[in-house]
């Protein structure tokens, strides 16, 4: 067999001719090469075999990220992108915080090197992020009970935790809110961690189904993980009140469950870092053991830098050391060590009093803009809608998103008739809304809410 092979003196095997034939004959279904006549003998041995990946089907576009892609393709000038949760200015432009630009310039001037970070990430970042979350003076910090490792923003941090759960809590389930961020279930599925839902959103009140939530948490097998949004619930914008948080903590302790916070909006929800960390700190104050995934995508506008952290609060410093070592063992075969750039930006901003102050001011500005837009949207809806529907849920919700209560057919009407891009669950990103567009959006929402079924004749999805 070896003797019939041509030796490859050069790399050109008339590949263009060969492939032109391939293209002519088509590529799907029947083997295109059975009919072909003359090829160089080397390519023949490969060419007759179909692709090893022939059976692979086209995956559907990501439901959230796919919205932006559809928006880009739309040529209508009225179009509005309320899909992905990235902050926009009033001019609907992306925003790089001034303090971030300052930090990057500083880093360049200093000539920082690009050596590998340790597997657990930048030490200065890890210290800063845990202190931001719990407060620098908190006993869990002082007593070194928190295992913190830098992760790839919120997603990456959640995934590390999920892998730890799979390894050390075999069979344990994670309870996620109904609804929750679409990618949560993908993360647990790929990490092979079973999950189920707890009631959360009440479509009747467009508010929190608190009784349902408590009942479902109570009913879960002891030692389950309960995924909680620290603040600014995604996609609903509906958060428990401080009193409700206390009751949630009570029932979790009662059932020896393990809380698992997703904190993607600290500082971005209310404008205050401390206020937005209140739920997490409540649990830490109680001496509970729990997980917290953090992201700096929104509050520092570092979306593309992929900077976040997984924190595991343990009952002892020894446990924290052991847990940290196992998180490293999970990260190493995933990406070896995390990217340095975003971590340095955070460490520089938090580590300098002046920059930290500037950051807080910019964050208040971003959160403030969103609150103003909420108010204007509400005012527009109330003044334009004569049906008497109660739109106050918009003001009660918090953070980047609002759950409009629109169903799939109504959401489709928003897009198809009004060129308003949003996710099919009725979620709109207020961060993508300007004051100037509030009235247009109000018209779209009112029309979709009342008339969508008439236009599209699709049954209501409950």
């Amino acid at each position, binding site marked *: 067999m*070896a003797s019939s092979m041509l030796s490859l003196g050069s790399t050109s095997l008339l590949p263009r001719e060969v492939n032109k034939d391939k293209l002519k004959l088509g590529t799907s279904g029947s083997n295109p090469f059975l009919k072909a006549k003359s090829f160089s003998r080397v390519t023949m041995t490969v060419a007759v075999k179909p692709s090893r990946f022939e059976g692979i089907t086209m995956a559907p576009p990501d439901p959230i*990220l796919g919205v932006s892609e559809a928006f880009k393709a739309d040529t209508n000038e009225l179009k509005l992108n309320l899909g992905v949760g990235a902050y926009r200015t009033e001019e609907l432009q992306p925003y790089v915080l001034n303090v971030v630009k300052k930090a990057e310039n500083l880093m360049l001037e200093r000539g920082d090197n690009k*050596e590998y970070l340790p597997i657990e990430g930048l030490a200065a970042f890890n210290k800063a992020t845990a202190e931001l979350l719990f407060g620098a003076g908190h006993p869990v910090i002082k007593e070194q009970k928190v295992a913190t490792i830098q992760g790839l*923003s919120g997603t*990456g941090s959640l995934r590390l935790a999920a892998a730890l759960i799979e390894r050390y809590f075999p069979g344990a389930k994670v309870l996620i809110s109904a609804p929750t961020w679409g990618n949560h279930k993908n993360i647990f599925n790929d990490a092979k961690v079973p999950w189920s839902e707890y009631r959360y959103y009440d479509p009747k009140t467009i508010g929190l189904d608190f009784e349902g939530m408590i009942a479902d948490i109570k009913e879960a097998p002891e030692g389950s993980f309960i995924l909680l949004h620290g603040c600014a619930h995604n996609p609903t914008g509906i958060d428990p009140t401080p009193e409700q948080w206390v009751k949630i903590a009570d029932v979790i302790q009662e059932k020896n469950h393990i809380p698992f916070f997703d904190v993607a909006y600290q500082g971005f929800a209310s404008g205050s870092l401390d206020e937005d960390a209140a739920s997490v700190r409540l649990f830490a104050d109680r001496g509970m053991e729990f997980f917290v995934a953090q992201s700096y995508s929104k509050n520092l506008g570092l979306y593309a830098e992929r900077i976040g952290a997984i924190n595991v609060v343990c009952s002892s410093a020894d446990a924290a050391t052991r847990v940290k070592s196992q998180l490293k063992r999970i990260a190493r075969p995933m990406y070896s060590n995390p990217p340095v750039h*975003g971590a340095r930006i955070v460490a520089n901003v938090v580590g300098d009093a002046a920059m930290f102050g500037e950051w807080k001011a910019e964050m208040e500005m971003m959160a403030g803009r969103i609150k103003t837009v909420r108010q204007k949207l509400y005012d527009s809806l109330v003044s334009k809608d004569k049906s008497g529907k109660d739109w106050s849920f918009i003001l009660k919700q918090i953070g980047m998103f609002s759950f409009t209560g629109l169903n799939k057919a109504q959401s489709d009407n928003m897009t198809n008739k009004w060129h308003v891009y949003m996710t099919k669950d009725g979620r709109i990103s207020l961060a993508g809304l300007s004051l100037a567009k509030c009235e247009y959006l109000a018209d779209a929402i009112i029309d979709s809410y009342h008339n969508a079924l008439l236009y599209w004749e699709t049954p209501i999805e409950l």
Partner: protein
Amino acid sequence: MDSVFSKVDRAPEDPILGVTVAYNNDPSPAKINLGVGAYRTEEGKPLVLDVVRRAEQQLVNDPSRVKEYIPIVGLADFNKLSAKLILGGDSPAIQESRVATIQCLSGTGSLRVGAEFLKKHYHQSVIYIPKPTWGNHPKVFNLAGLSVEYYRYYDPATRGLDFQGLLEDLGGAPSGAIVLLHACAHNPTGVDPTSEQWEQIRQLMRSKSLLPFFDSAYQGFASGSLDTDAHSVRTFVADGGECLIAQSYAKNMGLYGERVGALSIVCKSADVASKVESQVKLVVRPMYSSPPIHGASIVATILKSSEMYNDWTIELKGMADRIISMRKQLFEALQAKGTPGDWSHIIKQIGMFTFTGLNKEQVAFMTKEFHIYMTSDGRISMAGLSSKTVPHLVDAIHAAVTRVG
């Protein structure tokens, strides 16, 4: 109350990265770090390439630059330029849109994403990896759910390639098995097949439908030439067959901590490539959503400017040349000292690492008595050596070889 983490044991330090940890803790002024594979200058300092600094300055100065999420598959121009870099600008695979390229987190991330994709969509879940190989390889593949088998590679008797063993073991692999190939500068041995041997490997693999998965972490860094170091990959792709390629810019662009790399999946058709890409996105989204922008923007900036690209090739050759010269110096110094044994493998091997042939006991001795930090398999990073430190290393090797069994 009992901790829920009471069953969580302390994991041992990563053996490779643990070497640097130990080195850092050593107060001796004579210490040398020949552990992790990061380039060092003649002065023993980390290096940020000049062209990288310029690219970064350009990026930071650009007022239109934003930090919005990049697509799940990464920056489009980075992906195109990376495919072009490894496959060659005239590659028909590229021209026919048969290559799905996805920006990933350096080599490790590219390997992991590729492995997860194969586990989900490929009919074979066994991967053959060379013995020895980079310590992290088996872990990456195991965690992706693939089972790992070894093929013979290093021959300790010749300190070269066990080519017969390699052919036998790959010949015995089940049809369709995945085979990990180091594109150049094999880590940890520095032993590469010749181009004739590569051709035989290619023929054998194609005849058994074995699926090549290239790990290309040293393109340009091994010989000093980007094209030469891509030769093995290009001959496989030129035969029209399919393969996976994990590329890293950690060494050749000195972008270690930025985590920049790319996974390319060369398919039989554009249609398949586009479906494959869509499925790879489903692997990435629940792992980290989308890759980091900074390092990839630096790479794209450099690769798309012919001036910067040229400057890069010069700096890259400078690094490769310094390593080659360290090899020469070490070899000549061992000869001059009369250290027993044949040390010619030092100059025959290629890339950042040399497999010295020293055993675990000898290595431990060198660490303890001479403060030489290296991995226990006898691997040394030539990038960590300088003209000043060669004599101390020679003393250490000489002592180890003559005093320790």
